[in-house]
């Protein structure tokens, strides 16, 4: 049953992804500016621009270009960057890995702090803890991320000099890349000093990026827990002599978790899309920066593929969340 559902959902992704390719393709071609001119510079001769357009097939009608793009995609060819002439499928990997590593760190921070703050706020409703943590959560959702990032750098890098302000690694001691997840690579190489350096580089951007999800998760957990804590089965659990810890973490949290899980999924998807601002401030070579730079140089294939990869990850996360619903709540059935 579960397997059937998963297969059906995966098949349903085909039209979704197809629709996405069309939208992405059209939007990108609506970006003003002539790629040939951007690549060759304003002073290039008209002939050389024309030659480049022909080479990149930009002189073909849109549907032909789309057809080519789709054909390549289906055959596993993600295209070649106009700017670097590299295969995008290879070029994109380090960027994707950088974003993935940062997303994982941010979400672990956001879920751990957010869920626990939400639980305690609900359990101690209207206490000082509740007021203060919900105030922090409110500030967290409304604060601009770039400002938070700059403040972190100012305090923890510049003033206290505890943590590095930018990058993923000490540039003088480059890491031997295998997976491009630097923490994993450092462990694979047995370089514990590099692992520590990689972790230190992750902390500030991780907190900056995780703050908004953390605040949303905290507020969602609190309201969901408040509802659950009033329910009859919580009274039953207490009447059985369960300790407060067991009542909250074993009986209440799981029941309160479905809406929280939804938020976690959405936020993870959003972070995987790359956070251009945060990545810029922390000079983090992630997917957001990669696509942003590609837009600047009208590198159509990179933009297209980059956005498609992000969209693909987003729908996969959503599918994963849907499947997790069932693991949390056996009443949710997929027939």
């Amino acid at each position: 049953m579960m397997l059937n559902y998963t297969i059906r959902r995966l098949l349903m992704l085909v039209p979704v992804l197809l629709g996405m390719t069309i939208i992405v393709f059209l939007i990108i071609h609506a970006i003003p500016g002539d790629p040939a001119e951007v690549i060759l510079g304003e002073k290039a001769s008209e002939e050389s621009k024309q030659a480049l357009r022909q080479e990149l097939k930009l002189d073909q009608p849109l549907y032909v270009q789309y057809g080519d793009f789709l054909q390549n995609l289906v055959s596993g060819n993600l295209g070649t960057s106009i700017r670097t002439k590299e295969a995008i499928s290879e070029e994109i990997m380090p960027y994707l890995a950088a974003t993935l590593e940062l997303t994982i760190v941010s979400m672990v921070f956001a879920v751990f702090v957010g869920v626990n703050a939400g639980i305690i706020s609900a359990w101690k409703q209207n206490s000082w803890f509740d007021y203060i943590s919900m105030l922090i959560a409110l500030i967290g959702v409304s604060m601009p991320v770039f400002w938070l990032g700059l403040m972190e750098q100012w305090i923890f890098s510049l003033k206290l000099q505890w943590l590095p302000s930018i990058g993923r690694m000490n540039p003088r001691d480059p890491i031997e890349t295998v997976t491009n997840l630097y923490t994993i690579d450092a462990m694979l190489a047995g370089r514990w000093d590099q692992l520590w350096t990689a972790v230190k580089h992750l902390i500030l951007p991780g907190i900056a990026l995780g703050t908004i999800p953390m605040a949303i998760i905290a507020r969602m957990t609190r309201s969901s827990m408040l509802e659950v804590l009033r329910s009859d089965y919580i009274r039953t659990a207490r009447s059985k002599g369960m300790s407060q810890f067991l009542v909250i973490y074993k009986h209440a949290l799981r029941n309160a978790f479905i809406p929280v899980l939804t938020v976690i999924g959405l936020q993870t998807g959003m972070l995987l899309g790359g956070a251009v601002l945060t990545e810029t401030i922390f000079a983090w070579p992630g997917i957001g920066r990669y696509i942003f730079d590609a837009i600047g140089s009208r590198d159509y294939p990179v933009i297209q593929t980059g956005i498609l990869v992000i969209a693909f990850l987003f729908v996969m996360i959503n599918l994963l969340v849907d499947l997790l619903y069932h693991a949390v709540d056996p009443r949710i059935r997929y027939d």
Partner: protein
Amino acid sequence: MAVPLMTIQNLQTHFVTDKGRIPAVDGIDLHVRKGEIVGIVGESGCGKSVTSLSIMGLLPKPAGTIAGGHIYFKGEDLAVCKEKRMQALRGDEISMIFQEPMTSLNPLMTIGEQISETLRVHRRKSRKEAWRDSIAMLQKVGISRAEGIVREYPHQLSGGMRQRVMIAIALCCEPELLIADEPTTALDVTIQAQILDLMKKLNEETGTAILMITHDLGVVAEMCHRVVVMYAGKIVEEGSVKDIFHKPRHPYTRGLIRSIPRMDSDGGRLYSIPGNVPLPGTITEGCRFAPRCEHAFDRCMRELPELLEQETGHRCRCWLQT
């Protein structure tokens, strides 16, 4: 006469609301002996459920508090007991089952987990032992395919089955006192009878005393040895089932009994006590039932009568009986 298992003395439970402090339970005295089934009857809002939650220490915080009095359970005063100690007692020596079997079980845990966790907390049993005991307990409460049911979730069971599961949870540690708060109100009539029979049988077999909270005099007549009638936070009459049904003294008790539909009546309108239970917080001086009482006279409006013993074990709070 055996030493009471539980003695409640002058219990006062107050609720703090927007309209001020409301005495939901206003000085009740009550005792339950070993193995006895005592019923508390009364209309909604008379304080019977609040009494049971006070005993369990499960009053909704911070609104509800025990403002005075004592609840002695085997010599220990539960009214001033620490939460940790209450946790040790709850589910082990005192258990409770609730009105709503449909919502009283955790929807995300299997039946087996919900029974065995009680055994694991109080009896420190291994996972395996607790699981085996859970199956045995389900068989004891009359569930036939217990091995299958332990793996199922509450939503897969009917209301009657769920209430049996609740009873299994409540009785798995062989408590000395079971508080049953309207255990059959939400069930079909045929299932009601089965559940009552089951509780009565378990009472006889295990000697667990039962405090039966209900508004249904039929349930009282069927189950109880003794009855306490509550009205607006106070006890108005107390006696054996025989006394209460055959020689009711308080006009409220008489009214309750007259309100029971009878097969041999002439088919006219059913009797009902005129008026409504006073809203908590609006109670004035005098007998609380006086505004609705057909026999009320001057004194009833001015002075609250005492709960006086009329005959052995039969107490009544009424000026007509003095």
